[in-house]
């Protein structure tokens, strides 16, 4: 277990060392590339004055709500599309078209419509999460072996029993693969929304640091975002380890 982390730790150390040496000897000014130490000092300050925890909490709330809404919709719509070819034929042009529009392009519109508060960010986040989860739900449900449907039908199982005893567990591996992508994208969704217009959140903090030439603050915000993305990814991996033991 600990052995697995040694290479990661080493590469991290090498990265920090390289970064430190670069700032020391290249002559790049601190407001363009701050040193690791100044970022660390800025981090401690942002922690102690409470700004980092507060803005992180807001962004995390947007991400979690966006994920829940996006995944819920994607799962329900995905299941219906998987079950009905005709519904898929009607809806798929819209779905594909919606995917062709970059979220960044419609984010300002959503902020105009829904305000610069948390709601617009949740919606942007949900939109960006929706597609990968939708696609994987469809693929997962379609891939359920027909033999298992035969088995359940020979036992006169109800639709609900087929859903919970066959379709859900059989499509879970592919579904969780989609969730893994969606979880990482959700961070991007929230930040895109905050960068358009926001009074709070890590995106706001990032922009503030940018305006004030407080580059170490920008770095703190970026690293916090990376940490959030890694945490979400880790949670999905944990779910996979827990529920997909039968696969490996």
């Amino acid at each position: 277990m600990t052995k697995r982390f040694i290479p990661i730790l080493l590469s991290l150390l090498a990265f920090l060392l390289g970064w430190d040496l670069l700032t020391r000897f290249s002559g790049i000014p601190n407001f363009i590339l701050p040193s690791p130490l100044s970022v660390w000092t800025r981090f401690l300050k942002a922690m102690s004055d409470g700004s980092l925890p507060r803005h992180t909490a807001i962004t995390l709330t947007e991400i979690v709500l966006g994920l829940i809404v996006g995944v819920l919709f994607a799962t329900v719509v995905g299941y219906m599309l998987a079950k009905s070819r005709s519904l898929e034929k009607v809806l798929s042009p819209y779905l594909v078209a919606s995917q062709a529009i970059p979220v960044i392009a419609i984010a300002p519109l959503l902020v105009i419509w829904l305000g610069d508060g948390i709601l617009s960010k949740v919606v942007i986040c949900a939109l960006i999460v929706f597609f990968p989860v939708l696609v994987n739900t469809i693929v997962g449900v379609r891939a359920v072996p027909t033999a298992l449907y035969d088995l359940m039908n020979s036992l006169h199982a109800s639709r609900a029993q087929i859903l919970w005893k066959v379709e859900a567990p059989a499509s879970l591996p592919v579904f969780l693969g989609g969730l893994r992508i969606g979880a990482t994208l959700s961070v991007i969704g929230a930040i895109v929304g905050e960068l358009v217009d926001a009074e709070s959140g890590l995106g706001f903090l990032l922009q503030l640091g940018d305006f004030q030439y407080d580059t170490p603050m920008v770095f703190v915000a970026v690293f916090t975002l990376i940490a959030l993305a890694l945490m979400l990814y880790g949670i999905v991996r944990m779910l996979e380890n827990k529920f997909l033991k039968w696969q490996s």
Partner: protein
Amino acid sequence: MPHTSIFTIRNLSAVFQNDNGGLCALENISFDVKPREFVCVLGPSGSGKTTLLRILAGLIPPTSGSFTFGRGEEPSIGMVFQQATLMPWRTVTENIKLPLEVKKIDEAVARKKTKEMIELVGLTGFEDSLPRDLSGGMAQRVAIARALIHDPDLLLLDEPFASLDAMTRERMWTELSNIWQARQKTVIMVTHSINESLFLADRVLVLTQRPGKIKMDMEVDLPRPRKDEIRYTSRFGKLAKRLRGAIE
């Protein structure tokens, strides 16, 4: 005493749509099954044996014709498919228990019955194994246990013993014979083995090359219980010869 039949099958035909007009798998199949009768179905590959079982299980509708069980009620069915058809995420115990879950049987009762079935098919020690860790024959025994556990009215078996070794197969013949005699079930079993059908059946139906029609309907008037030695009797030899003649 006139035997009223429990299962009447009338003029069943099955045509599968394909590019050149349709493939006729079964043509005009009619037969009656008496209560508690053990019927074996023999026939060359592609003669529609699996299709017949799938129709009788209600998994696919016949193209034409009809079949009635009892006074028209839906029989409780135990089915063994040609492939074991286990749920890879469920352990041996959980796979065998499935029909009781579908029928919402009390959990404690279900546990106890499952344990009995595991002993019956000789899988003690593998209760918590996953299907991926079972041999083909073991997987098939799980499927057999699962088909019997809910004490169905009608057993539909599609070459259930094909992947077992000779020793286990003959033990399963005896077990199935005992279960059938004790529980008084109606059984329709597809097999490729003349020995197997003569050892188990009251009646053997032989299907023709595609499209499957009934070529022969033969009573097996061998005394029961049938022991291994019965194979060396002249009556057995005579029946085997008739079947062999019909199959070729």
